[in-house]
């Protein structure tokens, strides 16, 4: 059980308790259906042919032999997808360029990474489809490749796009390069700041590319009917976004495409975008049969959006009294084959935890011969936080100050300007540091070869568009339908907020995730937004239902609606009619549904704002074996401002999951390439995610500083927890071995090499 520091006791009956999740039984009995668990009569199996080269021009593709193989019903290439206009559409950081996206779904002129999709077949069995792939002949002109971000930025590096001129540099460079964009955020006067510093600490750090590591490979079943209407059953983090992107990639109207949300086996941002859906649909359009595609683990590692590798330099100027006066960060991120790494998030979040008058963050988005990056849990922020929190740790040590005290002294508070403009307005940062300072773990003694590291981390969280419908059944039970995919128990949290608002028991509310034709638009289940934004829509819909119920009670009692209030699940007479009638329960009113106006239904949509950021401060104790460089994580404590925990067990679960991913990222996870640019560890044996015996218990401290902009004080909790973890582990290892580790992952060979170098 985690400790929960609650400012004041609320009289809530459901919110804050730990009920069983409504979708739990199907998951523990194997009945729940994930992306790969759907089938349909007459279904064909689809398989995708992928490039064996890291960078090559496609001269020609001969599919005739594959086409002729008995049992093969269709072979497709990028010619089966419409060409797209070259333009950046939508918000800068997540600018979508369909010219790039269609090429990432299936290569056109060139393949940009090993595993890049080149063609696909649909056949009557898996083995036939597998055999057909071998019969497709692709004539490649192999080109030199580049993967490391620093190498990709060199003027002589092989170019992925002959015409890519760096955006964000004025005047624009005259030569093309792999740098798709430079961006900069600045406040104050850097030179003056550093001039006023007593000590300046600087480090250059690198991180390797990593993968989200979701256990369920991408999978879908797609059906495209001859009349142009289509359906897809897929596991994703947002079936509405999958519908919009897939429809555009197929060149079809969104209204003709209905996407059903399968249960999703983990995503962490990696399933915000489509990979197999457009291919399966295109194959179904060609064959007139439903087509099922299930990716292998190797395909997921080689072709599905990893988090970027990076090369960073951070410089911090600090006065002897502990005040940070200046900070400068340069963040170079791999974008993969197409522009669009999360380097802007990284630049914005880097110094966000702190009140520093003179700050600059410069970011470079660099394409290279790797799969296009996708979001991975607070995308970009854990990477820049690793660099900043390492140098903050060095600064604290340089002036001999307790690392938590040093952070507390410089922490951002409401009114502190951010480097991207607006001032911080929400509390919750300091509280997490104070919670950790009071934690017994922070003072516990350390033995030989042991070290303790701390770090803080900021994440924006997200609001945005959500819809919710509430239907009251005649027996007083309630259906709550939303369009938010449920990765982590959000059906439970939404049902709890509905029950609390309506004043009825939790198990009277049945939440469902509705498909794209059954509920209003719902944005991704990403950015830690579901319980916040969709929660607001659910509460507003429940309030509309309550107004409806009050009006019906007024009808039943033949009084004016103003004289009816709703309290503890009942309509009660008030005002002029106070005391004249027995309260009417929801069930009682629902039973008189017909005579008082018909079905009791409300659907609400919101574009939720008033987002409060997520903030976490974490502590890690490690022991390093000086003879082998092996790291054992002894203890991990994570304090996170969660606003108000609706379902504390699943909030704790988010923190434990984020910390575990951060520990893996810091110690053992990396993409390893051979000289030909091919991935040598495209499997769970050599891509080492933490196993059960690698990890300690992950102690959680739920710091609850409610967000006034949410009916139940909710703040997003899903992502802030991973932001400090990389640095907390790295700082711990650095203290254990007395040398600053500046490269992730801290694999045993790297630690042993650091140990043999002088201090």
């Amino acid at each position, binding site marked *: 059980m985690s400790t929960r520091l609650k400012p004041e006791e609320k009289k809530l009956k459901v919110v804050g308790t730990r009920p069983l999740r409504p979708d739990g039984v199907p998951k523990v009995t194997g009945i729940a259906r994930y992306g790969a*668990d759907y089938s349909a009569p007459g279904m064909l199996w689809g398989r995708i042919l992928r490039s064996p080269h890291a960078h090559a021009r496609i001269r020609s593709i001969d599919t005739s032999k594959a086409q002729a193989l008995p049992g093969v019903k269709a072979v497709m290439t990028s010619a089966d997808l419409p060409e797209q206009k070259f333009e950046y559409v939508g918000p800068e950081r997540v600018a979508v360029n369909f010219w790039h996206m269609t090429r990432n779904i299936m290569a056109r002129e060139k393949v940009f990474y090993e595993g890049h999709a080149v063609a696909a077949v649909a056949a009557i069995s898996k083995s036939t489809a597998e055999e057909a792939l071998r019969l497709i002949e692709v004539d490649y002109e192999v080109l030199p490749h580049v993967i490391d971000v620093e190498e990709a930025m060199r003027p002589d590096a092989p170019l992925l796009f002959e015409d890519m001129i760096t955006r964000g540099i004025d005047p624009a460079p005259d030569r093309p390069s792999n740098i798709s964009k430079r961006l900069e955020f600045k406040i104050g006067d850097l030179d003056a700041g550093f001039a006023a510093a007593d000590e300046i600490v600087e480090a250059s750090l690198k991180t390797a590319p990593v993968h989200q590591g979701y256990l369920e490979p991408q999978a879908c079943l797609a059906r495209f009917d001859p009349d142009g209407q289509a359906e897809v059953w897929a596991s994703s983090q947002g079936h509405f976004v999958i519908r919009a992107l897939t429809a555009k990639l197929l060149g079809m109207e969104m209204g003709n495409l209905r996407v059903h949300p399968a249960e999703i*086996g983990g995503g962490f941002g990696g399933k915000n975008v489509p990979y197999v859906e457009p291919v399966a649909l295109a194959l179904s359009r060609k064959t007139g049969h439903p087509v099922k595609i299930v990716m292998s683990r190797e395909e997921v590692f080689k072709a599905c959006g990893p988090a970027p590798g990076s090369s960073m330099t951070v410089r911090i100027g600090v006065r002897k009294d502990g005040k940070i006066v200046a900070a400068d960060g340069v963040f170079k991120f791999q974008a993969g084959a197409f522009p669009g790494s999360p380097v802007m998030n990284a630049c914005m979040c880097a110094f966000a935890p702190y009140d520093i008058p003179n700050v600059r963050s410069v970011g470079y988005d660099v394409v290279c011969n790797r799969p296009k990056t996708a979001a991975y849990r607070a995308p970009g922020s854990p990477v820049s936080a690793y660099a900043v929190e390492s140098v903050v740790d060095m600064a604290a040590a340089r002036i001999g100050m307790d690392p938590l005290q040093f952070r507390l002294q410089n922490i951002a508070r409401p009114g502190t300007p951010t480097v991207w403009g607006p001032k911080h307005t929400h509390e919750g940062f300091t509280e997490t540091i104070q919670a950790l300072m009071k934690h017994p773990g922070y003072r516990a003694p350390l033995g030989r070869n042991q070290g303790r590291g701390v770090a803080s981390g900021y994440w924006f969280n997200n609001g945005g568009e959500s819809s919710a419908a509430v239907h009251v059944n005649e027996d007083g039970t309630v259906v709550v339908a939303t369009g938010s995919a449920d990765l982590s128990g959000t059906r439970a949290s939404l049902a709890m907020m509905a029950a609390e608002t309506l004043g009825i028991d939790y198990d009277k509310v049945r939440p469902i995730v509705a498909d794209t034709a059954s509920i209003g638009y719902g944005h991704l289940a990403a950015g830690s937004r579901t319980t916040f934004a969709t929660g607001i829509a659910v509460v507003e819909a429940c309030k509309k239902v309550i107004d409806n119920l009050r009006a019906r009670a007024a009808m039943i009692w033949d009084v004016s609606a103003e004289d009816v209030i709703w309290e503890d699940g009942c309509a009660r007479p008030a005002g002029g009619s106070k005391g004249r009638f027995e309260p009417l329960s929801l069930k009682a009113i629902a039973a008189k549904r017909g005579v008082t106006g018909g079905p009791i239904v409300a659907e609400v949509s919101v574009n939720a704002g008033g987002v409060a950021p997520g903030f976490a401060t974490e502590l890690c104790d490690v022991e390093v074996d000086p003879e082998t460089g092996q790291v054992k994580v002894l203890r991990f404590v994570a304090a996170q401002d969660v606003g108000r925990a609706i379902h504390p067990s699943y909030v704790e*679960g988010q923190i434990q999951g984020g910390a*575990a991913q951060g520990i893996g990222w810091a110690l053992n996870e990396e993409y390893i390439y051979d000289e030909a640019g091919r991935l040598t560890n495209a499997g769970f*044996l050599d891509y080492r995610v933490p196993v*059960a015996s690698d990890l300690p218990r992950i102690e959680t401290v739920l710091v609850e500083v409610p967000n006034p902009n949410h009916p139940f004080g909710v703040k997003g909790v899903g992502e802030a927890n991973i932001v400090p973890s990389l640095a907390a582990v790295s700082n711990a290892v650095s203290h254990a071995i007395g040398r600053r580790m500046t490269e992730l992952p801290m694999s045993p060979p790297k630690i042993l090499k650091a140990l043999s170098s002088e201090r």
Partner: protein
Amino acid sequence: MAKHHVTATVNGDVVEFLCETRQSLLDVLRDELNLTGTKEGCGTGDCGACSVTIDGRLMCSCLVLGVEAEGKAIQTIEGMAAGKDLHPLQRQFLEHAALQCGICTPGILIAARSLLERNPDPTEDEVRYWLAGNLCRCTGYHKIVDAVLDAAREMRRP
């Protein structure tokens, strides 16, 4: 080439199926017998999501051929509950919120039951090392271990 005709017992019921030599038991369970509760996470025996027991022995069904199941007794997640009564492990996993996305849960439940059959009173370390072959990316394993320990306690009570 003609497929193999295999007779085996799955969750107590005799079943017959046809399979190609190279077809794994995992694919047979999912694609021929429509028991989709056993999941594929990697296809190389590194993630444990496809765990089943064969004649009481815990195995990855992706590394077993369908044809090898001839005459064997196979237990999958679909057979873990006794009809409508959940197994204590299934209940404790729900109580402890020991699953988030749930894709690894069937494999972990099968593996945990196999552990408790051999070791009714495991230490936390014994649980963690036994479950090292079952990857989970959502939970960080903390609540999974607690749920297994609580289920063990419950099952030891007379």
